[in-house]
């Protein structure tokens, strides 16, 4: 059995917990319970014969009072940078977090999720932001914990990347 640790990082209330809930339990709730510390879930994914046990570390969101502890990231085989598409600054948070994570644990596969894609009208990710993103050459997936859009794809892609790494 192969096990891999994956972390969810991002600004607060970007939908980290919701994405995990959607992926692991296929449920979604509008109610916001902020995560304190870290919450752990797991999900078994299959690639043909290959079974992979994903241990998901849903880490509390970053805000001005609380920085994400890099020690939680230790030993991660991959991570998600979760951005709330309706709040531009969460993208900046993701940029700075990516830098810190890489400094702490080195280069491991990661995917940036532009979450809350269902809120099209409120999107603050403009062309400039998209341009900045495409410059970085990162894997970016638009998703929504609410509708389930892109969720399976995001986790599947990251899992593959980790196995290839």
């Amino acid at each position, binding site marked *: 059995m192969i*096990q891999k*640790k994956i972390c969810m990082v991002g600004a607060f209330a970007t939908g980290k917990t919701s994405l995990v809930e959607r992926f692991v339990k296929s449920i979604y709730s509008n109610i916001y319970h902020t995560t304190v510390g*870290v919450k*752990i879930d797991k999900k078994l994914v299959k690639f043909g014969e290959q079974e*992979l*046990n994903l*241990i998901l*570390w849903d880490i509390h969101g970053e805000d001005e009072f609380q920085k994400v502890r890099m*020690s939680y990231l230790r*030993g991660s085989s991959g991570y998600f940078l979760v951005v709330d598409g309706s709040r531009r600054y969460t993208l900046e948070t993701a940029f700075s977090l990516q830098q810190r994570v890489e400094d702490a644990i080195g280069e491991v596969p990661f995917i940036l999720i532009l979450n809350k894609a269902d809120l099209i009208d409120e999107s603050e990710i403009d062309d400039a932001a998209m341009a900045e993103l495409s410059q970085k050459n990162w894997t970016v997936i638009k998703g929504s914990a609410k509708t389930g859009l892109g969720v399976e794809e995001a986790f599947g892609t990251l899992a593959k990347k980790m196995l290839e790494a």
Partner: protein
Amino acid sequence: MTDSSTSDIFNGASNNNHLPTQEEDVLAALRTLLFNPEQIETSEQQTGEKNTSPNLEEDVLEQLRTLIFSPDDAQVDNVQQQSSQKNPAANPDEDVLGELRSLLVGDDYQKLTKLQERLDDPKLYAADLSQVLAEAIILRSLQDQQLAKALVPSIEEAIKVSVRKDFKILANALFPVMGPAIRKAIASALNVMMQSLNQTLNHSFSPQSFKWRLEARQTGKSFAEVVLLRTLLYRVEQVFLIHKETGLLLQHVVAKAVTTQDGDLVSAMLTAIKDFVHDSFHVHQSDTLETLHFGELTIWIEEGPQAILAGVIRGNAPQEVRAVFHDAIESIHLEQSNILHSFDGNTTPFEACRPYLEGCLLVQFEVKEPKPKNQKLIIGSVLGAILIAVGPWLFLYIRDQQRWANYLEKLNAERGIVVVSADKRHGKFFISGLRDPLAADPLMLISSANLSPAQVTSRWENYLSEAPKFVETRTKQVLQPPQSVSLKVDNNAILYATGYASAEWIAESKKLVQLIPGVNKVYLNIVDTDLRELESAKKKIENYEVHFLNGTQLLPSQDSKIQSLVKEIQKLSNSAQSINKGIRIQIVGHTDAGGSENANITLSQARAQKVLSMFVSQGLKATNFTTQGVGSREPLPDNLSKQGKIFNRRVSFKVFLTDTLNRKSDQR
């Protein structure tokens, strides 16, 4: 001579068959002369030949040696000496010398040159040295300590550099060694503690302690160890082997019949908690979380360089269990260091660690001994040991227990209180019973017994006690006697009432006393106070005498006497009326003994009439009075002196109380 011929000669030198013996002999002699001059000199001295010219010969030989063996030096000399010569390469001497060289030393010379080259080339020299270094070190170490001494500074420096570069390498290398060393040190420290515990325990005896002593002897453990073991109760329910960096679960074992949570999640969570604690409390790098408590579960964590062992324990495990954990994680690191280092998420190889984890699933049950007949005896050593631990609590417990007993005793001694049930549950006292409302307040007794009212829940039902004291108090409460009455109830429940009281009270009491519970019989000996007052008022009036001068003329001072008399009579009349009595006052006129008795009677009658008329004029009713003249028939003792005569000219009073109003009205 060509190269091949040289090689021929070379070959020939090692094989005598191809060389003429004569030539060989000459060469050998020359070799001896050139290489072993000392030896030759010695032999020459011994033979005593050619003693005269040794110096000359030596010089020649020396020159020859230089020419043959130091060709470079010799050449330099040659160049200096034969500066006119333009072509040194074509020097025929060289060829000859070279040939001679080969003849004399053959392959030895080549070997020497090669050796020289090796010594000059650092790479080759190092390679050569490496062949013998290990052996050389061993040889030298066997000889003396010099090598070790010489190496100390370098090794110390090397360790410093290594630690500065990455302390983990050294730490990891030392881990399997240091563990046992540290444990040994701790074990010996613990031993000392056990010893001192042993000494205290040695003084206590009990059947149980003898049993344990026996066990100690049989197992070779110390007595204290056995006692601690026997009183502990624990069970290691689960053991996790966790990859330190990733927090991934490598292996998980569970004791039988234990319900578990998802090992993967617990494992990651434990790692997160560990990280959290480490980050949050700014502990030193080497300090790690060792124990976690969740309700009645304890988690012990033993950390190795790459992996963590976490055991979930129910109850109180002794430190030995930790040692078992420690051994397990150490052995796992020792045996599985390869797969630990190369771990990439594949947990399958860690199946091999299962036996170590299973070895940690330890259980210890409490011994249940059958109760000995004499319980007091076993309160020996065990209690002694426990007392140290629970002493303060026990003290409070015993103190409260004593106070409680004290309180119950007080209640039982109290009249009018009957305790029906009393017990203790969950540290609280419960009491219920009957209480005469006149009895002492049980709640007041709580605090006087030094118990806190909050500790005691009480339920009291009212009842009436027949104890004489209570009957008496109750009687007093009901009858409300005046101060002049005293009430007593004796052991036969007979009520004695004595003293003075109003007729009204007496009449009322006669009725009420029948209804008082606990009174069997009543003895009333109470004087009616109203009558008594009437009597005294009557006497007061009868003490009055109104005095006359002459005839029916009153003495001058008598007017005021009449005034106060009238008031007394009015008072008496009122109070008599209030108790349904009537009064009748007889006004009696007197004379002195002089004169005829007939005249005296008339005069005395007139004097009585005179006073009556004065009373009536003051508002008294004439019907309450009768008048009578007795002349001089009822004289005062002194009837002869002048003073006596004056006193006999008087009017006196007699008061009669009549029983009922009816009769009074009859009289009217």
